[in-house]
């Protein structure tokens, strides 16, 4: 570096740029509210995409960053949904208070179940997470005096969204989903901003470090179990928020929310979008839902065949090359 003596050392300069905003991140954050303005007719679909994206971002925190594999992430999604629906039905219909309660409840569930994922191998974790989701599924089924059992929790009326600390009149959820989408978007953006802080912090780096090498992580003085408990609790809360949003905007919670296919789907979304860079869940959710809509419009019965084929090709070719078609043929096409 012979050009103009810099005030900062190279390491300090590189570290200062560690959390800098990339242009495409800014574009993504700008595109989120724009989608609300420009696509008013698709608010219901976009809302579903945003909820799925939020759910997948939660999985990315544990899978992509901390390396915790889970086949039961729907446990938190469903728990948050039931918590929000029950709170609205039995206590208070206000959606924002309900959301906070649901996040708190599913974070607690994350904290309580985190001890189960500390030990063992990836296979152990897959089975334990799967088991926890199954247990909650059956509990929701059995406790029908509380949850409505197999019929689901109906008769949930959500009040209007009031902006905290302001005299504005509340926004009622409307039939075409614009209020619901706006509400979901605000939650998604807030969570993304917080998660972005988190993953670029020393805490975020420590998660990546223990994902790469637990032995060494402990050997630089990190408490691996405490970090895992922390991130699992946080991810539980975020997944719970996604579930709560679904329950609140649909006025319904059912056993299906705990189902295995939910856990598998969110894993699929994250695989499509890519793990470990925070936005994989968003791109994955968009791709997944659009593919779903496209294929089911064309051939409703064979949707699973095509998504299966897509997944096989994507994983075999590799995402990096899949999204760069110009690298498919010619020199250097083989890895």
């Amino acid at each position, binding site marked *: 570096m012979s050009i103009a003596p810099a005030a900062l*050392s190279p*390491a300090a300069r590189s*570290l200062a740029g560690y*959390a800098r905003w990339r242009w495409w991140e800014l574009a993504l954050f700008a595109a989120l509210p724009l989608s609300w303005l420009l696509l008013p007719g698709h608010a219901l679909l976009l809302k579903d995409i945003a909820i799925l994206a939020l759910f997948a971002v939660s999985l990315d925190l544990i899978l992509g960053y901390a390396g915790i594999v889970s086949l039961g992430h729907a446990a938190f999604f469903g728990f948050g949904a039931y918590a929000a629906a029950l709170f609205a039905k039995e206590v208070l219909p206000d959606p924002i208070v309900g959301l906070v309660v649901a996040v708190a409840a599913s974070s607690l569930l994350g904290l309580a179940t985190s001890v189960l994922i500390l030990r063992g191998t990836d296979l152990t974790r897959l089975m334990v997470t799967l088991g926890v989701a199954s247990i909650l599924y059956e509990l929701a089924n059995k406790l029908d005096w509380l949850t409505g059992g197999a019929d689901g929790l109906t008769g949930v009326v959500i009040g209007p969204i009031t902006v905290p600390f302001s005299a504005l009149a509340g926004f009622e959820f409307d039939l075409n989903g614009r209020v619901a989408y706006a509400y979901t978007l605000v939650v998604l953006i807030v969570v993304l901003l917080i998660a972005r802080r988190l993953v670029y*912090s020393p805490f975020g*780096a420590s998660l*990546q470090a223990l994902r*790469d090498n637990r032995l*060494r992580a402990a*050997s630089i003085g990190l408490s691996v179990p405490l970090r895992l408990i922390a991130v699992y609790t946080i991810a539980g809360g975020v997944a719970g928020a996604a579930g709560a949003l679904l329950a609140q905007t649909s006025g319904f919670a059912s056993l299906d929310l705990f189902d295995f296919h939910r856990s598998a789907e969110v894993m699929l979304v994250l695989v499509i979008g890519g793990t470990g860079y925070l936005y994989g869940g968003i791109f994955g959710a968009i791709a997944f839902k659009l593919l779903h809509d496209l294929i089911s419009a064309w051939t409703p019965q064979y949707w699973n065949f095509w998504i299966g084929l897509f997944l096989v090709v994507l994983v075999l070719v590799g995402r990096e090359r899949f999204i760069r078609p110009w690298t498919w043929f010619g020199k250097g096409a083989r890895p």
Partner: protein
Amino acid sequence: MTTVLATRSLVKRFGGLAATNDVTLDVQRGARHALIGPNGAGKTTLINLLTGVLEPTSGTISLDGADITKLASHLRVRRGVVRTFQINQLFNTLTPLSSLALAVSVHRKTSTRWWRSLGSDAGVAAECEQLLGRFRLGDVMDQPVHSLAYGKRRLLEIALALACQPRVLLLDEPVAGVPEGERQEIFETINALPADVSILLIEHDMDLVFNFARTVTVLVNGAVFAEGDVQSVSQDPRVKAVYLGEDDVT
């Protein structure tokens, strides 16, 4: 001389095999202490016991007089017992810079600040700059660790340990696989550590051991076979017979 790290009658059995057999060892403050012995003598097992990677079958380990036999691995690091590994143990998807910044943040107790960027602390940056310079990792500091050449990764292995500001540094064959010409340089960096840092070294290159160490402990079959200053150990005929015989040490 004060003893910093000590073991008393330390035993580790793997089934019927005593990998560590009744080892009583004192590491003094500011020691330059080498641990030598033939392959399978239990040197790495002893380091694993000292750092809490393994739990001893019996016996005790103490640091500054306090019993740390049952203390978790990461808590020993926070008390200043830091090691390097014989086989590189690195964070492969991180960069050398972010690895070091993390280790320094952990040492400074700022690693739980989730709302601050890893790079926001000027003190962390300064320490990283110093380590990168000392280990000549500056030109690769922003590349993922897995893409680095072996020699660079070996340097990072040691730099990561130094980022933890050790009081007792346990080096498990630090220059294994490092080209002859660069070994001396790594040792000069290690030698340049503050005089009150205690260093316990496992090494096979006898020239390096005798240049570096003031005290030598010879392990054979998990037990202490001989101990003393460099002079007496290198001239001990029994040591020559079991271990140094093959090497030409004169």
